[in-house]
């Protein structure tokens, strides 16, 4: 899922300066799973903002609504008759959802309450880790299921480098060396031959905004 982190409170408070009536829009999918922007988190943030603004003698009226996902127009539709009452929208969805929201209501200031951080996995409640950099050229087949682009600090395709430190990356003892892990995984499966060959230069594909149109579908002449 996409993992995001709530922005520091001061930053959010700052963004809302000058606004007296704001709708806080949460998202019930990825950000809810990582406990950043779901219904509960919308309530907590609103409580904080309410108290802080009152202490500043500058109260703010805050609405709260959480939609299933902000990256799908059918769920955003439910907001259409609500947004008119507010001066600005505060979104707790990931960057993609926030932008979709902003696109749908181009006359409204739409503000991000979160920093979108990574594509990752749920290790345990409250603990999420990055696993994918969406490079569009997945090589997991020959790295034993461990991504060298994401998990190697230098993104090496022919690693490890000389800085690998007893199974850990040179950047920190907390960070396993991806290539050490890849070696271990492939050795365990008796597939070391896969990395004995030299892997040539990669054509990077994440240099511009990407679009996917599934076979059999096409872009409508006009977007909705």
């Amino acid at each position, binding site marked *: 899922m996409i993992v995001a982190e709530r922005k520091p409170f*001061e930053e959010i408070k700052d963004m809302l300066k000058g606004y007296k009536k704001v709708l806080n829009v949460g998202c019930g999918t990825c950000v809810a799973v990582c406990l950043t922007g779901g219904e509960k988190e919308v309530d*907590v943030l609103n*409580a*904080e903002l*309410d108290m802080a603004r*009152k202490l500043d003698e500058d109260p703010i009226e805050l609405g709260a609504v959480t939609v299933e996902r902000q990256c799908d127009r059918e769920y955003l539709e439910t907001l259409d008759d609500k947004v008119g009452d507010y001066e600005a929208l505060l979104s707790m969805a990931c960057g993609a959802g926030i932008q979709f929201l902003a696109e749908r209501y181009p006359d409204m200031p739409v503000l991000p309450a979160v920093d979108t951080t990574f594509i990752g996995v749920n290790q345990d409640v409250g603990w999420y880790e990055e696993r994918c950099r969406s490079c569009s050229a997945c090589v997991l087949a020959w790295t034993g299921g461990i991504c060298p682009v994401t998990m190697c600090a230098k993104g090496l395709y022919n690693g490890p480098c000389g800085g690998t430190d007893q199974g850990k990356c040179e950047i920190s003892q907390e960070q396993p060396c991806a290539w050490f892990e890849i070696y271990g995984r492939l050795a365990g499966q008796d597939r070391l031959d896969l990395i004995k060959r030299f892997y040539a230069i990669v054509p990077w594909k994440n240099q511009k905004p990407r679009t996917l149109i599934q076979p059999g579908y096409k872009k409508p002449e006009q977007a909705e």
Partner: protein
Amino acid sequence: MHLLRAIQKGADGVYAVGCLEGNCHYNEGNLRARERVEHVRILLEEVGLEGDRVRMYNLSSGEGPTFAAYAREMTEHIKSLGPNPLKKWAKG
């Protein structure tokens, strides 16, 4: 959320009381409560209020006098912090 709401609505202080650590009837409930109390204390500081308005005390259900002592301690403590500045915004 309940802890935050209480302060938001103007309460001067909130204290949560849980079993002695290691003695919870529900095993971990008191530990989770402790984590949440800690989190709320941090949130209050972020907002500009004293995190110390919310506290957790641990004791067993048989310790009546200790309970009373904690109640007095909390009362004295809150008095020293002064009233919640958000009180005037509360209705009624």
